[in-house]
């Protein structure tokens, strides 16, 4: 009896445990949409004056031409900025960032990276991030902040000239903006692959559990 009761209460408690609260899920998917719009329109803008010896295929860009891409980019930027700001404020105010992402220790990152690469990393408790996750999630938040700031300094190099100067001038800010985009795309590929490898993590980001 007692063991049955224990099992009951266990199974009753289990589904109630929310791994990703509603605000995280909502902001995550708004951010995903905003990022895709920004990246695809950004590639079309890049094509107008490439920094390197290549252009992005028209099939994966948004806007059709420079003017259309700029309209998308400067529309989606509001979605990205407002949502991102709300995410940062909520993450800091609720203590979620501190709880979930800290501390990050080099030894922890090395041990978990080794475990991940030998497929020995456990995913039993999705509410606790491993050290590799902590590092990547904290890192991508930082990259997100830098890409918005470098974008603002390219957009407003006179009105926000102190910010542009901080990045080393207009031309350097363009490279910073591009490198941040590359980091986000690289993160996105790994992030999506790992979510597909551990499908319950994807489920948690959709229905919360």
């Amino acid at each position: 009896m007692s063991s049955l009761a224990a099992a009951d209460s266990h199974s009753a408690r289990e589904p109630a445990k929310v791994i990703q609260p509603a605000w995280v899920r909502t902001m995550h998917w708004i951010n995903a949409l905003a990022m895709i719009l920004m990246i695809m329109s950004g590639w079309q803008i890049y094509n107008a004056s490439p920094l390197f010896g290549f252009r992005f295929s028209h099939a994966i860009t948004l806007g059709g031409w420079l003017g259309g891409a700029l309209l998308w980019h400067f529309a989606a930027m509001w979605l990205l900025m407002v949502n991102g700001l709300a995410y940062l404020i909520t993450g800091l105010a609720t203590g979620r960032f501190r709880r979930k992402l800290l501390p990050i220790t080099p030894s922890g990152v090395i041990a978990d990276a080794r475990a991940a690469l030998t497929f020995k990393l456990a995913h039993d408790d999705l509410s606790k991030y491993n050290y590799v996750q902590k590092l990547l999630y904290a890192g991508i938040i930082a990259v997100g902040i830098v890409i918005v700031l470098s974008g603002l300094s390219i957009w407003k190099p006179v009105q926000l000239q102190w910010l542009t100067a901080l990045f080393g001038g207009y031309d350097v800010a363009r490279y910073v903006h591009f490198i941040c985009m590359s980091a986000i795309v690289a993160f996105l590929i790994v992030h999506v692959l790992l979510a597909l490898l551990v499908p319950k993590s994807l489920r948690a980001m959709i229905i919360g559990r």
Partner: protein
Amino acid sequence: MGRMRKLLIPGVDKKLLVRDAVKVMPDLARRRFISGGASLGALTFLTGCNVVDSDSADRMLAQISKFNDAVQALIFNPNALAPTFPESAITKPFPFNAYYDLDDAPEVDGKTWKLEVRGLVDNKKSWTLDELYQLPQVKQVTRHICVEGWSAIGSWTGTPLRDFLKLVGADTRAKYVWFQCADTEGYNSPLDMASALHPQTQMTFKFADEILPRAYGFPMKIRVPTKLGFKNPKYVISMEVTNDYKGGYWEDQGYNSFSGN
């Protein structure tokens, strides 16, 4: 996809309907409509849903661009000066950039050219180049930033536009100064009054201490360091002080109208 379904209306000839629809679209809108469709398709593919149909997306984007005009006008600081650079920083050669090749650039005869001044001004007299050259000039070395993303530092010399506007008795409470240019397609561009009155906004007659060459807009260019390059008209033939938004060559095709730096 929704667009295709709508075209399949029983009893309506598809071909005629499309032909009528295309007739009411201006040339560029047609071109953009087609090219825009391809990338919207890619987005639809990526997100797995039909995010938008082209028409309502275009309308929404145009609305947001107007909102962005207002935001930029709001954060525009009339006293914030564009950074200036030493002569050693000047980009050589300074790029020629236009929708036409250099060979097709307007060739203006400086002897017969006159600047027409229209609209809300006290003195509507036209100005010859010699008369304009008499006005006090200043030199500034600033960064020209193209809407395409590249930038180049150049040296421009000329008369501050705000001094000229004062001289001709312009109503500076008006919303825009609208410029028209000499090229065949009739390049034009509106400049909001706050930017027109900015201390660095200049009627430019010289590039790198030489009379403005044909490549850079002889006989007169409007240099606005607080705006993207396409809002710096070349080969200017007239300016009009007006409260009406008269559109512009690139603005009408979708570039953001304020496009401030």
